[in-house]
């Protein structure tokens, strides 16, 4: 299955971007083929209100079944969960370790948004 991780770059040693709505990019990792591709999310960096919605649309259109990020706001959470996408929250770690945590079943599913929506 495909999972999307909010990231700053394509470097697996780089730390994950803790924010979902304002992430610069998403790394879409395929757990079967163990390959990854990078999708751009910068059109959302300047969107005031609705960044979470647009980022969610972006990853849903990429066909992911789960996302891993640091924090999810209420609108992103609503759109992702209503579309059947699972949401996992992780501490700030490098992407490589986060993929390992996910594969080993360490990450827990988030049952609600964990931050308020805001505009910055």
């Amino acid at each position, binding site marked *: 299955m495909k999972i999307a991780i909010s990231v700053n770059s394509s470097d697996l040693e780089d730390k994950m971007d803790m924010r979902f709505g304002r992430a610069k990019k998403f790394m879409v990792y395929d757990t079967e083929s163990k390959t990854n591709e990078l999708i751009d999310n910068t059109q959302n960096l300047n969107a005031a209100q609705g960044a979470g919605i647009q980022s969610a*649309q972006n990853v849903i259109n990429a066909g992911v079944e789960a996302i891993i990020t640091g924090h999810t706001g209420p609108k992103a959470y609503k759109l992702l969960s209503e579309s059947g996408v699972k949401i996992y929250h992780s501490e700030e770690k490098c992407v490589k370790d986060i993929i390992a945590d996910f594969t080993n079943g360490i990450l827990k599913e988030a049952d609600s948004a964990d931050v308020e929506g805001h505009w910055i």
Partner: protein
Amino acid sequence: MIIAVASGKGGTGKTSVSVSLAKAIAELDSKVKLLDCDVEEPNANLLLECSRISETDFSVKIPSLDISCCTGCGKCAAICEFNCIAVVKERAVIFPDLCHSCGGCSLVCPEKCISEIESKTGVITKYSSGKIHLVQGILDIGKAMSPPLIREIKKNTESEIVIIDCPPGTSCPMVTAVSNADYVILVTEPTPFGLHDMTLAVDTLRKMKMNFGVVINRSDSGDDRVENYCRKENIEVIMKIRESIDAARAYSKGIPLYDALPEIKQDFISASKTIMKRAGEKI
């Protein structure tokens, strides 16, 4: 006749002046409607001995989707200027928090599967205080928008004389509150902050082509910059109220200027006559 009381800066005494003018006009043997449109922090009821008549919920219209007929065409998301609709996996998802209730999504849906439902955003309370009838609006905490509630309160204008206690500032809540008034009073204080914010309010009122005058509160507490500005700009100063620790103490206990300083009653009565005269004049 509609008189709006506004200010650029908050805390200049707008509510105390509104209530005092209402009392002065009531003294002149006239029924007055006082509309408290400072819906984020309404205070007029704290300055009047009043009894509550009614309390009703206020709601705005937000879209509601019938999923069974949604084809995911995206026309609703495309027309929404406020990012309230997203379309994923061939269906629309609605985020009503910042909905402005324009009705566009419902109009544009080809399958007619968006209807409008009511969503409570505030409360309208009516009070009676002698000849003064107070209508207050209060916005629910966390709700975004004042203007729809303000517009609803302003429907209560079936009365000879209506005084509107406006929100401070010069952005859309204040503009909504003052629009269509016959005369606007700007309450200010003679300080740098007071003058600066007043000039912003003056710019707004001029843009809206409104008839207005100024009341200087705590007129001896600062310097003469406000009076100089009014003279230069040909703005009428309707009334000056001197600073008074007694008035401040009385206000803290919910006593408006009109009752706190007996010597000021006459000033308010003559100011209200001037204001009503101006409100009746065409520009």
